[in-house]
């Protein structure tokens, strides 16, 4: 049976119920919560602050450090807390996704710490993490040229779908499932995150990126609305 209707009854290009909020961590300089269906991410930004030890400082530009962490209760089967190969990889790709938009040149010798915690996971956690991190950075008053939005597009059997869930990721019939997290910048429309898990034809890839771009525009509107709702 081909994948004609999505498991949760959404349209192919429809996002899950998405909401965002800033100022959730009172002690941080900036923080944000981003919720996408059952996926919930909290990002807290500390800094810019002095980077110690001193030999880690860069006199030319600031340093951005991202810590991605999935809490042990975020999935149905408890995961071991702390660093894992997966969390280190996601921290790194998130850092690369965020670095082009932060004006690090203006902050020599300093560090900006971004802590992303996943409270609840149902696929697309790195995208929710990036969305939350971008909002937290903006809320922390870090100089940035633009915003970033991320979404996980996928190819389930032969259909391009937006914002995949865990259930869809595990779909095995037909051509199987492909999961493609993408992140687009809000103004220039540049792509700063692109990963691929599965298989996809070159032609379909273009389609998937188009779908991702459209979805990111919708997510950006949600981020923008939440950021402007100060108090």
């Amino acid at each position, binding site marked *: 049976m081909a994948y004609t209707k999505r498991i949760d009854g959404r349209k192919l290009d429809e996002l899950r119920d998405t909401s965002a909020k800033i100022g959730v961590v009172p002690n941080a300089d900036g923080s944000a919560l981003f919720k996408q269906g059952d996926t919930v991410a909290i990002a807290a930004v500390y800094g810019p*602050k*002095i980077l110690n030890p001193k030999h880690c400082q860069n*006199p030319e530009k600031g340093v951005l450090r991202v810590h991605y962490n999935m809490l042990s209760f975020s999935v149905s089967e408890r995961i071991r807390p702390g660093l894992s190969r997966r969390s280190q990889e996601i921290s790194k790709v998130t850092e690369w996704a965020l670095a082009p938009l932060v004006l690090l040149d203006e902050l020599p010798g*300093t560090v900006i710490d971004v802590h992303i915690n996943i409270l609840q996971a149902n696929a697309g956690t790195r995208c929710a993490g990036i969305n939350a991190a971008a909002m937290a950075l903006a809320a922390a008053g870090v*100089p940035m040229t633009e*915003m970033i939005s991320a979404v996980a597009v996928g190819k389930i059997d032969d259909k391009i779908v937006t914002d995949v869930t865990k259930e869809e990721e595990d779909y095995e019939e037909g051509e199987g499932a492909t999961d493609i997290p993408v992140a687009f910048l809000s103004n220039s429309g540049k792509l700063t995150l692109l990963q691929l898990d599965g298989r996809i034809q070159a032609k379909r890839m273009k389609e998937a990126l188009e779908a991702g771009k459209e979805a990111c525009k919708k997510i950006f509107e949600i981020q923008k609305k939440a950021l402007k709702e*100060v108090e």
Partner: protein
Amino acid sequence: MATKTKKDIVIPGEIISKGNDFLPGDWTMKQGENIIATRIGIVEKYDKLIKIIPISGVYIPRGGNVVIGEIKDITMNGWMVNIGGPYSSFLPLRECPGFIEESEMENVYGIGDLIVTRIFDVRRTSVDLTMKSRERGLGKIQSGIVVRVNPHRVPRVIGKEGSMIKMIKDASNCYITVGQNGLIWINGDDIEKQAFAKRIVEYIVDNTTTEGLTEKVEKWIAENKPASIKTVPKEEKSEENVEVKE
């Protein structure tokens, strides 16, 4: 300051001006034909200059600011002070009034002491402090409490020409020194007065976006003032005052 409504707040990357009508000022940049905001804040236009007034984030040191800092380290010729900004601040020995023996340095300002100091110079990656000033009130904090607030809300705590701070002083009978870095020193003769002053400050900080803040605070003080606090006798008031206008 004008009241902040939702539409006044801009986010990074938002186009705030098209064409060549304005010159980009603080926290803005030119991108092609447009001027975009690079920080969350409120747009302000002066003549041909357009700039963003930040509403959140860490303290940005400016020359001449009076700040409250914590002594972090004692070096050969001065003290390292944490004033909350992204860069380290240094208070040189020569910027302290009087002669201080090198062995005496920790008795003057020891590690962990809080001091009221003035920013002398802001350089690319460091800040120089000074204790020499014609204004009174610089020095070590010996008693009282220190409250930390968002540094971008300090102008509202001070009020127009210090009107708000005067009101707090009169109501609570405490001496108050506002550091531009968001640390506020409240010094009174008993804990009850200090606690009341702290509550007023917190109330102001929580309501910075409301219109007619002065009247609201006045009303709040009248409602919440403990009976034990008497109004200030006039002659006491000339003692204090370290206010800085931005």
